[in-house]
């Protein structure tokens, strides 16, 4: 059984300009102990999908199963139970901590809600702060006394409090400086080795995803274009969008950067209010043909364990 199973998940927002189909039929499985990278450009729906899994935004269709249990009908006790298993860390460690709560209280919050006893909470908070590499006097201090990287560690400690099975990491290192970013990535990997937690790692940064993910899903305007193992995606990307995305990602090696062929993708993401008919990528795709403008491709297996949604792959 998959830890997380998404079946044709849809999320839509009603705006004054019309309906935005932010997540438009996503099916995906995440195994126990796996790190699944979810990549795409802004507006592709990757964060919305993460929030839908946490039930922070309602799904308009499809099913989200956590350990085989559909989360849609859950409420009260059962929902709390589910949230124990699935936790989230956010991009902005400044905005996701209560500035008027001490770090100790913020980290203890999930434990309090879960009905832990004060003694047990104090001990647990101590342990959590040690795990994420914060000094033990951190608990009496306030978020503003910490740097961005340390605040992200606080968020990670809070997410770990109830020993979740899955942590949804929504751009967790995008706001951090290079050296601190590496510290947080290493911490996430250490914690995975230690506790066997799985990650859904949402990011626009391909080099970070390549480093951390076992499998990668590529998203564009609400749908998945390609899903595959890390090496398959990087060594033989199948979907033209995946190829364009990889070609566009800067490589921190001047010789490799000069050697590679760069076909720069033209145009920008179309408005999600008014996506092109057929394949949403047809307005920018170098391979687009008549069929792409008429018929929306579906994600189908390629035989090597990978999947792609393109008529011509």
């Amino acid at each position, binding site marked *: 059984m998959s830890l997380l199973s998404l079946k044709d998940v849809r999320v839509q927002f009603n705006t004054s300009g019309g309906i935005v189909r932010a997540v438009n039929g996503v099916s995906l499985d995440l195994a126990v102990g796996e790190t699944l990278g979810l990549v795409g*450009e*802004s507006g592709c729906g990757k964060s919305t999908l993460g929030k839908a899994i946490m039930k922070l935004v309602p799904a308009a269709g499809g099913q989200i199963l956590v350990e085989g249990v559909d989360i849609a009908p859950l409420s009260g006790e059962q929902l709390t139970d589910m949230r124990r298993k699935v936790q989230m860390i956010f991009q902005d460690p400044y905005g996701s901590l209560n500035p008027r709560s001490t770090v100790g209280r913020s980290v203890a919050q999930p434990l309090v809600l879960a009905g832990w006893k004060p003694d047990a909470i104090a001990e647990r908070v101590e342990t959590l702060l040690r795990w994420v590499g914060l000094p033990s006097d951190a608990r009496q201090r306030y978020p503003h006394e910490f*740097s961005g*990287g340390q605040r992200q560690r606080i968020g990670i400690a809070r997410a770990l409090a109830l020993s979740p099975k899955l942590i949804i990491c929504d751009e967790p290192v995008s706001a951090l*400086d*290079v*050296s*601190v*970013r*590496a*510290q947080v*990535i*290493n911490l996430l*990997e250490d914690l995975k080795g230690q506790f066997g937690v799985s990650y859904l790692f949402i990011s*626009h940064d*391909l*080099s*970070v995803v*390549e*480093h951390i993910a076992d499998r990668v899903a590529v998203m564009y305007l609400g749908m998945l274009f390609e899903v595959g193992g890390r090496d398959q995606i*990087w060594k033989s990307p199948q979907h033209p969008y995946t190829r*364009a*995305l*990889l*070609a*566009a*990602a*800067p*490589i*921190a*090696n*001047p*010789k*490799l*950067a000069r050697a590679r062929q*760069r076909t*720069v*993708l*033209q*145009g*920008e*993401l179309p408005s999600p209010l008014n996506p092109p008919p057929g394949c949403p990528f047809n307005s920018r795709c170098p391979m687009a043909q008549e069929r792409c403008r008429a018929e929306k491709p579906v994600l189908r297996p390629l035989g090597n364990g990978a999947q792609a949604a393109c008529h011509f792959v």
Partner: protein
Amino acid sequence: MKPLPLEVRDLRTTLFTRRGEMKAVDGLSLTVGPGETVAIVGESGCGKSLSALSIMRLLPDPPARIVGGQVKLNGRDIVPLPEETMLGIRGKEIGMIFQDPISSLNPVATVEKQIVEVLMTHTELGRGQARVRAHELLELVGMPDAARRLDAYPHQLSGGMCQRVVIAMAIACSPSVLIADEPTTALDVTVQAQVLALLKKLQADAGMAMIFITHDLGVVAETADRVVVMYAGRKVEEASVDDLFDNPLHPYTVGLIGATPTPGAERAERLADIPGMVPPLNALPQGCAFAPRCKRVMDRCLAERPALTAPGPGRLVACFAAEGS
């Protein structure tokens, strides 16, 4: 001999705050030749943006003030020039592109009006000619559907399109120096690739000197000819882009490169991180500012601040450990 487009000598910018004086830019020297791209890299707080603002004389004063050094633009030191003279230089001899394209544009003026204004301020063109030129510039920067976009307001355009407008304005008067401060940081990766390609092409066509400020070593590898690495307000290393990535000398540069995952390379078990973080400018350590985070720290580093030395042709490094090895 024709003077270099940009020559910065021992530039010093200090922030005068209630908490004391902070040396935000501490003796920076660099030169940029025609058609050359020099990248300034470093993490937040290392002084790269303040260096750019100092060079353009756009510092918020107070608290920031240039307290020493020269900025020679085509041979003329612009540091002592009055603001009125600078108004005629910025946009004409030196162009600027900032990180956030939307806030660099006037939200209540059309694209055409903003480009025309630049042209009419700095050139002899009349309004009619300026409008024709504005259209040409938008075509030149690859604005899709350029004719129609002339009448658009910034909020009607995407981030990538706004950055194209900003670039069109920056190059409108064919400046000899272009300063780009994190110009693609706010953009998506496919749009970033478009803008980088555009900047390179415009630069090659016009032989502009470019200073490219970024925290992203990937972008450095793609765009720079030469690289200046800054830490805590000072230049700690300078080298050609190949030398820097092949054989980084300063432990901070080594750390930055190790901390950046490189797709296509063998997967490292762990990224090489640099412990700690950039120190605040008002709490710089005694000796080398990097010493508390440095793997190769020696007694001498804690007492004495290393000066820049030249370990090889075209290379500079400020590190006792790198000197010794």
